[in-house]
C-alpha cells in the first residue's frame, strides 16, 4: 500500500516536473525568437500579443488553428499506428493523395445521391484509398520483399503522379480553362462544417481516431500483443502472435487515417481535386508522430503548436513585416522543445 502511494506520488511529481520543464522550454524558445524579432527591429511582446489575438484570442482565429490541425492529427496517426510495431510509414503523403483520389471518384460518380448517403460513402472511400495504398507496402513487408520505409516513401511519388494523371486527363474539368483540376464536388459531397467556421466533420474523424488509438493500445488484448510485437517480434511470435497479420492490419488502418485526411482536404477545403492538394501534410504528420513517439496527447500538442505557429507566422508577416523565412526559425525552435520534452518524461525513450 505504502509502495503504491509512493509510486503514484513519484509519477505525479514526475508529471508535474515534465509539465514545468515543457513550459520552461517553450518560454526559452520564445525568448530566443524574441531576439530574432529584436534583430528585425520589432517589439517581441507586441508581436506575441498580435499572434495571440489573431489565433487563440478570437473564436475565428481558434477555429482556423483547428482547421489546420485536422489533417495533421490524422497523418500523424497514420504514422503512429504502424509505429507501434516499429513499422516506419513514410507514405502518409501518398496515402493522403490516394484517399483524396478515391473520395473524388465517389463524389463525381455518385454526385446525385443525397448527402446522408454520399458523405459516408465518400469518407469510406477516402479511408479505403489510403488504406489500400499503404496495404501494398504492408504486403511487401510481410512477404519480406521490401522494407516498408523505402516502399512507402517511393509510393508517395507514384500517388502524386496518379492524381496528376487523372486531373490532367480523364477528370479534367472542361470548365477550368485547361488547368489541371477536377470538376467541383457536388454540395452533397462537401463535408459539413461546424458553427459557421471552416472546422469540418474531419475533426470528428481525428478525435475518434485518437480515442480509439489510445483505448486499443492501452486497454485491449490487441494493444498488449502489439506492444509485445514492438518490443520483441521473435518472442511474440513464439507466443502465438502473428506479426504478418498485424503488419497488414496496422498498415491498412494507418494508411486509412491519411486517406481520411486527404478526403477532408479535398472535400471540405479545396472542393475539387488538384495536384496542389497538400503542402506536405503527410510529411509533417510523420514529423509530429516521431518527435512525440506516437503518444496521443503528444500528437495533439505538436499538431496544435505547428498549426498555431503557421497561423501566427502569417500574422507576423502582415503586422510586423517579418519574412516567411524567419517564421521557420520559430517553428524549428518549438520543434526542438517538443523533442527535448521527451527526456523529461522519465523514460529512456
Amino acid at each position: 500500500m505504502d509502495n503504491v502511494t509512493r509510486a503514484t506520488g513519484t509519477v505525479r511529481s514526475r508529471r508535474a516536473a515534465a509539465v514545468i520543464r515543457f513550459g520552461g522550454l517553450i518560454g526559452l524558445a520564445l525568448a530566443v525568437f524574441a531576439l530574432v524579432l529584436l534583430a528585425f527591429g520589432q517589439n517581441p511582446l507586441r508581436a506575441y500579443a498580435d499572434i495571440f489575438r489573431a489565433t487563440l484570442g478570437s473564436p475565428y482565429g481558434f477555429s482556423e488553428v483547428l482547421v489546420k490541425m485536422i489533417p495533421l492529427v490524422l497523418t500523424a496517426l497514420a504514422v503512429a499506428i504502424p509505429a507501434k510495431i516499429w513499422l516506419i510509414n513514410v507514405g502518409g503523403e501518398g496515402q493522403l493523395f490516394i484517399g483524396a483520389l478515391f473520395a473524388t471518384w465517389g463524389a463525381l460518380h455518385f454526385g446525385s445521391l443525397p448527402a446522408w448517403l454520399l458523405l459516408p460513402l465518400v469518407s469510406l472511400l477516402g479511408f479505403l484509398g489510403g488504406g489500400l495504398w499503404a496495404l501494398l507496402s504492408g504486403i511487401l513487408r510481410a512477404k519480406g520483399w521490401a522494407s516498408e520505409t523505402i516502399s512507402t516513401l517511393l509510393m508517395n511519388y507514384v500517388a502524386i503522379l496518379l492524381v496528376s494523371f487523372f486531373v490532367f486527363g480523364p477528370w479534367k474539368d472542361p470548365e477550368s480553362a485547361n488547368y489541371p483540376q477536377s470538376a467541383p464536388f457536388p454540395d452533397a459531397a462537401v463535408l459539413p462544417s461546424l458553427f459557421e467556421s471552416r472546422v469540418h466533420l474531419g475533426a470528428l474523424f481525428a478525435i475518434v481516431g485518437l480515442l480509439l488509438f489510445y483505448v486499443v493500445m492501452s486497454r485491449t488484448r490487441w494493444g498488449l500483443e502489439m506492444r509485445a510485437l514492438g518490443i520483441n517480434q521473435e518472442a511474440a511470435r513464439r507466443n502465438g502472435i502473428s506479426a504478418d497479420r498485424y503488419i497488414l492490419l496496422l498498415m491498412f488502418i494507418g494508411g486509412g487515417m491519411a486517406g481520411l485526411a486527404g478526403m477532408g482536404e479535398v472535400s471540405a477545403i479545396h472542393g475539387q481535386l488538384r495536384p496542389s492538394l497538400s503542402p506536405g501534410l503527410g510529411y509533417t504528420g510523420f514529423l509530429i508522430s516521431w518527435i512525440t513517439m506516437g503518444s496521443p496527447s503528444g500528437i495533439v500538442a505538436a499538431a496544435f503548436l505547428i498549426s498555431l505557429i503557421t497561423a501566427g507566422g502569417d500574422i507576423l508577416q502582415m503586422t510586423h513585416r517579418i519574412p516567411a523565412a524567419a517564421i521557420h526559425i520559430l517553428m524549428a525552435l518549438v520543434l526542438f522543445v517538443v523533442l527535448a520534452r521527451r527526456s523529461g518524461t522519465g523514460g529512456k525513450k
Partner: protein
Amino acid sequence: MKNTARLILRELAILASALLALGTVVPSAAQAQEKLKVGIVHIGSIHDAGYNQAHAEGVQIMKKNLPNVEVIQVENVPEGADAERVMENMIKQGAKLIIPASFGFMDPALRVAKKYPEVKFVHPGGYKLAPNMGTYWASTPEAFYLMGIAAGKTTKTNKAGYVVALPISFFLANVNAFQLGARSVNPRFETRVVFMGTFLDAPKEAIAANAILDMGADVLGVIVDSPIAVVQAAEKRGAYSIGYHYLGVQKFAPKGWISGIAFTWGELYTRFAKQVMDGTWKSEALFGNLSSDYLTISPFGPAVSADAVRMVNDTKREFIAARKHVFAGPLKDNKGAERVKAGEVFPLQGIGKMDWLVEGVIGQPK
C-alpha cells in the same frame, strides 16, 4: 498669485481650444486623404526573381506612387486551407483590396469575396468573376514570338530548349509561338520542350536545362515560377538565355542574356488602388497585350545583334497594329497533322484549347 492662476487658466483654455480644433481637423483631413490597405498573398518567396517577385515589386511601385496606400503581404502561402485564412486575416487587419496572386487562389478568393462584399479582389490569370472580384493577365504568345525572333537570329546551333512547368495549353501556346518566331528568321530552328510537373523545383530544372544543353541546344528559355535555375545553368555553360516573369532576371545571366518577357504590374496596381479609393473600381476581366504597360520586353543582352533588335521591334509594332498574327496558317503540328489552314488564323482568345505542339518543337503535349 491671482495673476498666475489666471495665466494658467488662459493657457489651459488655449490648449483646450487647440486640442478641440485639432480634434475636428484631424478626422476631416483623414477623410480627404483616405488611406487604403492593400493585402497581397504570394504563393512563393518574394525573392524568387520570378512570378512572385514581379507581383511584390508591383505593389511596392504602387506604394511609391500612392503614399496613402499601405501594403500588407504574406509569402509562401500554399494553396489550400491556408489561403483563405490569410485573406480573412488581412481583411480583419483592415485591407480593402486583396490581390490573391496565384491561379490556385481563385476559388478560395471567391469564397472570401462572397463573405466580405465590401472588400475588392483582383486575381491574376483566372477566369472567374464576382461583383467584387475582377481578374487580370496579359496574352503572352506575341511576346514569345518576339523572343523566338531574337533567339533564331542569335543561336549558333539552331537548337533551343524550353523548361516548362506543366503541359497546359497556355504554356504550349507560348512554346509554339517561340518556335514560330524563330522559324520565321531561321528555317532550321528547333525547340525541345521539357515539362517539370511543378512550378518550383530548382534542382530538377537545372538537370533538365543541362540535359537540353547536352543535346546541342545553345538557347534556353523557361516557364516556371523562378527562372533563376535555368538561366544560371545556361550562363555557366556559355549558352544564351531568355527570361520570364521578372524584369531583373538579366543579372543572373549577364553574358548569355538575349532578352525576356516580364510582367510589370506597378502601374496597373496603382490604377486598381486609385479606383478602389475613389469608388470607380468595377469588376472586369482585363487581358492585356504588348501595348499594355504591364507586359514588357526586357532589355536585350550583348549577344543580340542590332539587326535582330530591329526585327523584334518591327514585328512588335505589327502585332500591336494587328497587322500580324502569331498563329497564322498554314500550321502543322509536330506529328505532321494540319492544325491551321492556309489563310486562317488561330485566335489568341482560343489558346485555352490548344493541345498540340507546332512543327519543329520536340516534345509531347500531354
